[in-house]
Every structure is written in structure tokens, then in C-alpha cells.
């Protein structure tokens, strides 16, 4: 893995996320946001990679990432999804959810909206009120779903529309959207729970779990095209692939390192590639793409096109083969997964990573941000 730029930034990075690209997709990723933790003053900062218009001999951008601006954040930044091109939502360890607006003209951030008591243990009215951290946020314009340690909240622009309290006696660790009104959460006893917001009532609809080991799961990500395929990473460093339509057990378990896996991400346009980062400072690239010759190469360029093409093939057996994600295949002989370590040396934990074709950014507890622009070189 060449061309990783490292920069020490004097704050431990908790989350880093690329800013979403406009739908025309004429540009590659250029801005990412980071949120820090464990400081007396934490910051949310957008950064830009490369000097605009400054090309080197290969036509790529030179130089490392530059800080655009920053804004103080109360509490650790627990999650940092982008609401849209200009707005970033943050979840804080103080239970506060904030929407920041990034003004690209004068490069400043400002608070657009804030819910300071989004999550708490006992209500604001009670004498034993104490705030609880907000552990995850997912956005689907115009809705925001925030997950605290024990509850969910659904909000739109103005206010929280729905709260599901005491949703879990164990603490939630992460959340993702399955299909639009349905979310999937993972918790500290190794369970995946789905919740459908269309349904009334507070019951979580479906529970899947690992074996009786009760190993906490820390992160979850959904396959970009096949929404029933979900990957989770746990405290013991095991990457699990699940099919939420069937069964209560994971489809496959892949052992990475011995330490907590903090984040797992499918590559958004190349979902046969998966990236994980762990507490022991490793950043891994899992490559499940196969080169079985009888499959057409077009199948691997994105889920939607493969579904379309498969219908035109007369051989029914092949249809099933191609639609099944390579991740779900349980035949080890056919699908070998290659793993590569992306960081040159290991020191402290890599807390967060994000992938946006063809760039990858990750942030560590050694107060460094690594960016690479050539993932599949």
C-alpha cells in the first residue's frame, strides 16, 4: 500500500467521515470531517485533501490534508454522519445531538440545531437526572435516528418525533439503516436487533445473536446493494457476516486480530471489499472478490447491474450463484478472502475509518490522521 499520508493533529480522533459527493460524481472525495475525544476541549473539524488545482506529474493531488476550520464540541464525539452536503450531525458523550452547518465560502462551522438532552438515564424532571451518551446517529434526510445507550429517538428537522425508551438493557454500541424505515442496532451482549419505525409499539422486531458467548459487538455496516447482508465487528476482533432475512446466527465468522474491532465498512461502490480497524492499531482490507472465469466481469461492478443482467441468462443455477453475495458464500474453497494490512506500523488504536472511492481516511489514538488516495492501485 503506497502513498499513505500521515499527519499528527494534536487530538485523538474518534470518528472520521468523508463528506458525501454530489450525485454527478465528477470529482473524487475532497473533504472529510473528524471528531475528537478525550480532550478537555473536543473539536469537530473538516479537512481537505490536496491543494486545489495543484497537480503533480501524475495528475494526482499533492500534499497532505489541511485543516479547514474547527468548532468546539461539548463532550466526546461519538458519531459523525453527514446529513447532507453541508450539514454534519454529531452525537456527543454528554447525550447531546447537534447539527453543524459548514459554510464553504468562509470556511466556518456553525451550530444549526441542537438537542441537548436527547439521551439521559433519568428524565430531566426527576431529581436523579443524569445524561447518557448518545452512541450512534444515522441520517436519512430529513430524518435522524439517534441511539443512546438504552434508547432510540427519531427526529426530523425540528424536534424529536418518537422515542423508544429502555429499548435494551444492555448498552447499544452502533446503528445502521437496513432499509429506510428499519434500523439495525448492535449491543454489548452480541445481539443484533432490528426496529421498524413504521410499526407502532416499542418492541424490537427481530433479534439475532451470536452464540452464548455474549461478546459485545462494536460496529455494524450494511452491504451497499444487498440490504440483507450485514457485517459486524466485535470485542474479540471477529468479523461476522449476517443475513438478516434468515436465521439467528451469523453466516460466517472471520478472525482478524485479538483486539476490539471499532469500525467496519463496505466499500460503497465495490462491495466485495471490506475495511476494518481495531484497537491494536491495525487497518485491514478484506478482499472477497473472486476471479472465477465463468462469471462475467460485469457482475463485480455493482450490485444493481448484476441483478439486471442475471435475468437475461437462461441458466437458472447461474442466476442464483451471481445474486448471492460473495460474502454470504460458505464455501471456503471457492471464495478465498484476501486480507491486507494497510498501515505501515502499528502503534495505538485506529478508532475510525471511512472509504469513498478511491480514498480512505482513518484516525488513531496516536493523534494521527492517515489518508490514502489510491486504494486499488
Amino acid at each position: 500500500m503506497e502513498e499513505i499520508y500521515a499527519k499528527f493533529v494534536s487530538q485523538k480522533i474518534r470518528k472520521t467521515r468523508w463528506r458525501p459527493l454530489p450525485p454527478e460524481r465528477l470529482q473524487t472525495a475532497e473533504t472529510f470531517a473528524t471528531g475528537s475525544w478525550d480532550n478537555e476541549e473536543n473539536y469537530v473539524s473538516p479537512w481537505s485533501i490536496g491543494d486545489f488545482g495543484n497537480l503533480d506529474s501524475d495528475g494526482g493531488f499533492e500534499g497532505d490534508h489541511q485543516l479547514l476550520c474547527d468548532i468546539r464540541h461539548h463532550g466526546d464525539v461519538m458519531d459523525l454522519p453527514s446529513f447532507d452536503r453541508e450539514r454534519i450531525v454529531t452525537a456527543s458523550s454528554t447525550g447531546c445531538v447537534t447539527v453543524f452547518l459548514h459554510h464553504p465560502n468562509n470556511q466556518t462551522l456553525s451550530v444549526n440545531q441542537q438537542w441537548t438532552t436527547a439521551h439521559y438515564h433519568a428524565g430531566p424532571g426527576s431529581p436523579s437526572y443524569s445524561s447518557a451518551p448518545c452512541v450512534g446517529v444515522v441520517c436519512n434526510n430529513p430524518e435522524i435516528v439517534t441511539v443512546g445507550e438504552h434508547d432510540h429517538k427519531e427526529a426530523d428537522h425540528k424536534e424529536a418525533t418518537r422515542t423508544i425508551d429502555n429499548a435494551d438493557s444492555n448498552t447499544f454500541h452502533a446503528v445502521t439503516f437496513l432499509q429506510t424505515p428499519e434500523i439495525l442496532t448492535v449491543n454489548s451482549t452480541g445481539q443484533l436487533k432490528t426496529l421498524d419505525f413504521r410499526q407502532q409499539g416499542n418492541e424490537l422486531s427481530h433479534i439475532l445473536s451470536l452464540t452464548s458467548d455474549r461478546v459485545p459487538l462494536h460496529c455494524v455496516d450494511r452491504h451497499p446493494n444487498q440490504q440483507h447482508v450485514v457485517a459486524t465487528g466485535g470485542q474479540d476482533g471477529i468479523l461476522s457476516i449476517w443475513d438478516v432475512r434468515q436465521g439467528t446466527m451469523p453466516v460466517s465468522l472471520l478472525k482478524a486480530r485479538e483486539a476490539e474491532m471499532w469500525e467496519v465498512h463496505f466499500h460503497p461502490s465495490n462491495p466485495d471489499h471490506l475495511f476494518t480497524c481495531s484497537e491494536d492499531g491495525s487497518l485491514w482490507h478484506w478482499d472477497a472478490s473472486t476471479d472465477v472465469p465463468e462469471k462475467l466481469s460485469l457482475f463485480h461492478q455493482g450490485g444493481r447491474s448484476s441483478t439486471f443482467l442475471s435475468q437475461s441468462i437462461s441458466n437458472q443455477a447461474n442466476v442464483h450463484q451471481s445474486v448471492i453475495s460473495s460474502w454470504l458464500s460458505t464455501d471456503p474453497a471457492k471464495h478465498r478472502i484476501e486480507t491486507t494490512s494497510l498501515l505501515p506500523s502499528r502503534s495505538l488504536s485506529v478508532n475510525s475509518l471511512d472509504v469513498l472511492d478511491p480514498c480512505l481516511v482513518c484516525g488513531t489514538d496516536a493523534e494521527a490522521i492517515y489518508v490514502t488516495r489510491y486504494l486499488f492501485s
Partner: protein
Amino acid sequence: MEELDGEPAVTVIPGVNSKKNQMCFDWGPGEMLVCETSFSKKEKSEMVPSCPFIYIIRKDVDVYSQILRKLFNESHGIFLGLQRIDEELTGKSRKSQLVRVSKNYRSVIRACMEEMHQVAIAAKDPASGRQFSSQVSILSAMELIWNLCEILFIEVAPAGHLLLHLLDWVRLHVCEVDSLSADVLGSENPSNHGSFWNLPGNTQTLTELELKWQHWHEECERYLQDSTFATNPHLESLLKIMLGDEAALLEQKELLSNWYHFLVTRLLYSNPTVKPIDLHYYAQSSLDLFLGGESSPEPLDNILLAAFEFDIHQVIKECSIALSNWWFVAHLTDLLDHCKLLQSHNLYFGSNMREFLLLEYASGLFAHPSLWQLGVDYFDYCPKLGRVSLELHIERIPLNTEQKALKVLRICEQRQMTEQVRSICKILAMKAVRNNRLGSALSWSIRAKDAAFATLVSDRFLRDYCERGCFSDLDLIDNLGPAMMLSDRLTFLGKYREFHHMYGEKRFADAASLLLSLMTSRIAPRSFWMTLLTDALPLLEQKQVIFSAEQTYELMQCLEDLTSRRPVRGESDIQQLQDEDIETTKVEMLRLALARNLARAIIREGSLEGS
């Protein structure tokens, strides 16, 4: 106790009037707490209004500097790399690795210096600009010292190469301070000697060089004697300089910014093949000549002098005093230790100097809310006192979020610090209990394998059940698995839930025997027996006979046990009377149900099957 080397510095605390009132203080791990007391210094006992604040005083402010943080983080990576260098390597390859590490450290210092310089220029108010500039000069001095130590101690340049390295050293450091004039004096020399020294790939031996140089030197002397250049005073003084004449060199003092520049220039012309052990003589005299009795040597000068004298301990000692942060001495000493240059020198506290400095540095890191993670690795590489220090420090890290707690726990578990794991989990479990999150509390107790706390939490669960009639956190209790065995109370809780399940699935016989075993095996707490017996009621009232005669006898036994032990109440108020009423009604109902069941059981067991 050694004598102090200097007067301690006085720090004035704003708002505290030390003349009027006495102050009190207490030491913390990296800081001091100070406040005013109400004890007046004078004899009169008048109450003077005192300052209402408590002050936290920190000596080490560098830890809080944004730019220096980068230094700490990057050097942490280099430090780890150094520790992991294969011990097997010896000789040239090891030396080149160590030199590379030293250069890495230096480049990190330089990068930091660059950045601070930029900030100093861009600073808006002059006071902070000055502060940054002084930081820059401190960093520059650190790099100067480190570079010299690298040349003398790590590279261990032999005679001949030594001067080349020293030339580079001076050029690097002098040129950046005084770019115009130093170039004049510094750079014209190599052009004269370029062919002479034949830099890389030098195949000449030292003696050959020395011979050639002697020859050339004698030629210059002859020119001087013959007054060949007498007509041109500039050329003549140039000639004198090239002969290494000290007086001539000193005349150009403005061009030489400091005494070590003078030293190296002098060596270049008078003794270019100087041996390392002879350096100190030249160094001392250069310092004296340059200062000329006008000013006294500064701390930096003393440090450099000690380095030229190859007195490593003195270098480290002086640096420790002069610098405000342990970073420099800790890393330098560690590197020199890897070069096997430090004798193991027992200090008062039983560990050697390297370990002492690393411990001090790491403790300073732990005082910072964020940099404690770096400190952990430093403690790991202190063989004698590192583990103990880590144990003490890691318990005191404030745990605000679960994420941080998980990281701390991971650190403790990796090092088998079970006591610390237990204590941290207990803290988190207590927090959870206080927030009424019994499920989390139980999870934490299970992780810590803390039976006592698990019992406490299970009791809370059972009490809540008695009060509210339902369990909270069912998804946790129902899926305990083997963790159930941690404590008796927890096992009871799990089994009790199992009983509920069985009842729900209408497996009455199994439920009944489970219920009975819970009571007879005595894992059920006595306070809960009434509830258990009450749970047995619906089973007793069923159409079919569930409890056998044997079992019914045992139930009766339990009931008698329970009622006989109950203390006889004397006078009581209405509430207690009402409670008693309920109790007696329950007991009566139970007795009735048990008797009826017994009757039916005896009949059923006595009759033949099928009839």
C-alpha cells in the same frame, strides 16, 4: 540528600495574599493544590477575608501545548520502534539502526520547531509571539545537543570523520541563526579542501591525510614567514586564519556566532585529524577564549562542554535541570542506554537512570487527560517499577464514557492486571446501579468476575421483582449462559427465570421440580421463599396433580421452616397489622392448598394406573 544546585524559583499565585495568611498545599500526581487558609500570620486572631479559590499548579505546561503534543506522539512511535529493535543485532548494522533512530528523533524535533516558528510569526499579540519564539529556541538548543550527542556517542565518529561531522553540525545550526555571514566563513573552507578530504568513499588512511595536511600547513607557514603576502593585509590575515591562529580567528568574532563555531573552525585549521578524546581540551580553551572573561557560560554551554568531555551523566543532569519537561532526557537516555553507554548506576530509588527518567516522563503524561495512552507503553518498558507504576496510575484515570473504559480494560487485561480490571468494572457497575441500569451493572460484574457485586445486583433485581411484579432487563437475564455460575444469587435468578419460562410453556412438572429444588437446595434467599411458595400456589391449584406426595411434604416443610422462624411481633401499628394480616392469609391459603394437594397426590399414587 544532595545540595540544591540553585535557588528554587518563586511562583506568585494571583489572588492569594501569602503575607497575610498562611497557605496550605497538597501534592497530586503531576500537580499541586494550593489555597489560602484562614490562619493569619500575625498574632491577632482577626478574621481576614481570604481568597475563596483553590488553585491547581502545574509545573509541566509543555504537555498542554498543541504543537508539542505532536512531538510526544511521533516520538512515542519512534520509541516503540527502538525497543523492538532486535537485540541480536550487533556491530555495524545495529549502529546504523541506532543512528537512524537518532536521526528520526531529530527530524521530529525539527518539524516541531518549524511549525512553532510559523505560529510565532503568525501570532497576533507580541506576548504569545515571544513565548513561541522562546519555545523555538529551546527546541533548537535541544536539537543542537542531541545532534552533538549523536556524533560523539552514537555515531562514535573516529578521528578524521569526526571533524567532518562537527563541520556539518555547526553548519546546520549556525546557518539557520545567522545565515548571511556564517556562510562566508563556513563555506569557503570546503572549497579549499574539497579535493583534500575527498569526502565519501575516502580511501586514504588517517595517517596519509595527516601527512598531506602537515605538508600543506608547513607550506602556509613558510608563506607567512617569508611575508609573501605582506602587501595585502587581508590576504595575510586569511593566511593566519588558515594556519589556525587563534588571535586571527578571534578578530572575526562577529562572524562566529558562538564558541563552538569558533572551536570547529579552529580545529579545522589547526588540527583536522583531532581524536575524540582530545576534543575536550580544545573545547574548554575555545570557550574561554571566545568568552574572553566578559560573560559567564550559559547552561547550554555547560551541556555542550560536558558532551565534549564525554561525560554523559553530566550532560543528562544538566539537561534535566535546564529543561522543564522530561521528554528530552528520557528519550536521549533511553537511546544512549540502547547503545550500551550507561553503566547501571543505582540511584536512591533502586532503578537505573534510564528507568527513572522514563518513569518521570510517563507519570507526567498520565497527568494529562488525553496523553495517558502514550504513558502506558513507556511503563511497559521499565522492567523494575513500570508495572507497579502502571497499576497505580491506570486506576486513577477518570472514566467518562464506556468507550474509554473499554480501552482501559483492554490495557489491563492484556497485562493480566486482574485487580485493576475488577476495580474498574466495579466503578462502572456502581455507576450503572446509580442510574438504575441493573442490566449494565450485571454485565460489568460478570466481566470482572466479581461474585460479590453480582450478588448485590441480583438482590436488587429480586427486590424490584417483589415490588413491581415483573423483571426488568429480561433479555439479559434470560441469556446469561455459563455466566450464571458466578454467584449463588445470580444462579438463583437465572433458574428462577427458567422456572417462569417453563411455566409459560406449560411444562408444569418440570417447573414444579425446579421450584422445589430451588428451595430445598437453599440457593434461594430466605426473604424470597414466600414468593416462591406463592408461585407454587397456581401449580397446586391445577386440575391435575403436579406435585407428588413427597414433594408436597417438602413444600410443607419449607413453609413450616419459614413461619416458625418469623419473629413474634409485639405492639405494632396499623400498617404492620395489615401486613401481618396479608401474611397470615397467604400462609393459610398455602396450607389449605398444600393439604388438598397432598390428599389428591396420596390418592393418585395409591391407586392403580388406569383405574
